[in-house]
């Protein structure tokens, strides 16, 4: 900033602070949010729209002096609820085969390991269909790094219930996909 810059007038200062915070959160959470929504079954375009709406809501929330604790959980909850409005496509992609696209995410430095990883994902893709909706959502939110408390806030569940569901889901998958 140059020395002759003029500081923002006071009424705009809170807005500027909120806007800067939203920008930081956007950089940090955009991809995890997109990945969660796409894993729920939304198309890429739908997920982009939902993430954009969620951040617009966040801006309004912060502008109106809303609470700033657990913003990550708040954002995921808003995005999750928006995704619910796309119910027609919600189950479309879940559990579909990913044969053609796995090469993009698997490290090819060790071909043997890459093959094993590919097989593991294929088995998990088949096994994940066994889980019910809440179990899948808990696992996906956990995969995006959310704590049990945050997952509970997103899905409207008690933290202890989230722990039980995650434990049950992991054990189911371990049994079904033999990894």
């Amino acid at each position, binding site marked *: 900033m140059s020395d002759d810059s003029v500081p923002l007038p006071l009424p705009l200062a809170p807005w500027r602070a909120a806007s800067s915070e939203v920008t930081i959160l956007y950089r940090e959470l955009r991809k995890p949010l997109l990945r969660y929504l796409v894993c729920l079954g939304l198309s890429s375009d739908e997920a982009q729209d939902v993430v954009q709406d969620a951040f617009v809501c966040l801006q309004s929330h912060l502008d109106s002096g809303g609470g700033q604790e657990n913003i990550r959980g708040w954002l995921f909850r808003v995005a999750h609820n928006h995704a619910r409005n796309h119910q027609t496509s919600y189950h479309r992609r879940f559990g579909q085969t990913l044969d053609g696209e796995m090469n993009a995410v698997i490290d090819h430095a060790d071909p043997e390991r890459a093959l094993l990883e590919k097989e593991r994902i294929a088995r998990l893709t088949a096994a994940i269909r066994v889980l019910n909706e809440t179990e899948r959502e808990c696992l996906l939110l956990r995969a995006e790094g959310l704590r049990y408390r945050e997952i509970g806030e997103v899905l409207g569940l008690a933290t202890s219930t989230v*722990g039980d569901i995650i434990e049950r889901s992991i054990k189911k998958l371990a049994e079904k996909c033999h990894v």
Partner: protein
Amino acid sequence: MCELERKLIAWMDGELAADEAAAVEQHLDQCETCRKRLAKYKNVSETVASYCDAVFVTATKRVVPIWVPVLAGAAMLAGAGMLFFMSVPRRIEPIALDRVPVLGATAAPHQSPAKAAPQKTSQRQRPIAPVARKMTPYQQGERIEIAIPAEAIFAPGTVPKGMTVIAEMRIAPDGSVQDIRIRQ
């Protein structure tokens, strides 16, 4: 089954209180079965993460249809052909002298009666007679073949060696290019 087995996943996720976590760690040091279970749960967690990445890549990957670059290349070729033809001097058919308009005659209806007074012969506009040029008239259906090297249009290496593309087009009497067809 071990009593602490139920807490392995919560411990792995860092969700246990300090005293509970210490108890699980102590148990893991002693129990081979729980260590194996823990390894299995970690494996499942990593596979779920890989699965999420694969789904994300699938959804966000933009697959460009094969016809898009082909069509783009054909459009570029057609554009280059048009530019080439536009740069060639257009042939002008000789104009018959008896069809040349006389400027004085065409301007007369627009003149007001006051200005339409008889003028001196020296000041009157004289008809302009164009000079008839000796040019070959355009033959309908005449075929002109122009070869443009593919390297001049496409980036090096993008066109297979020996591949030729033929652009056919019709030049309308007004000089415009019509009915462009690209074929291999």
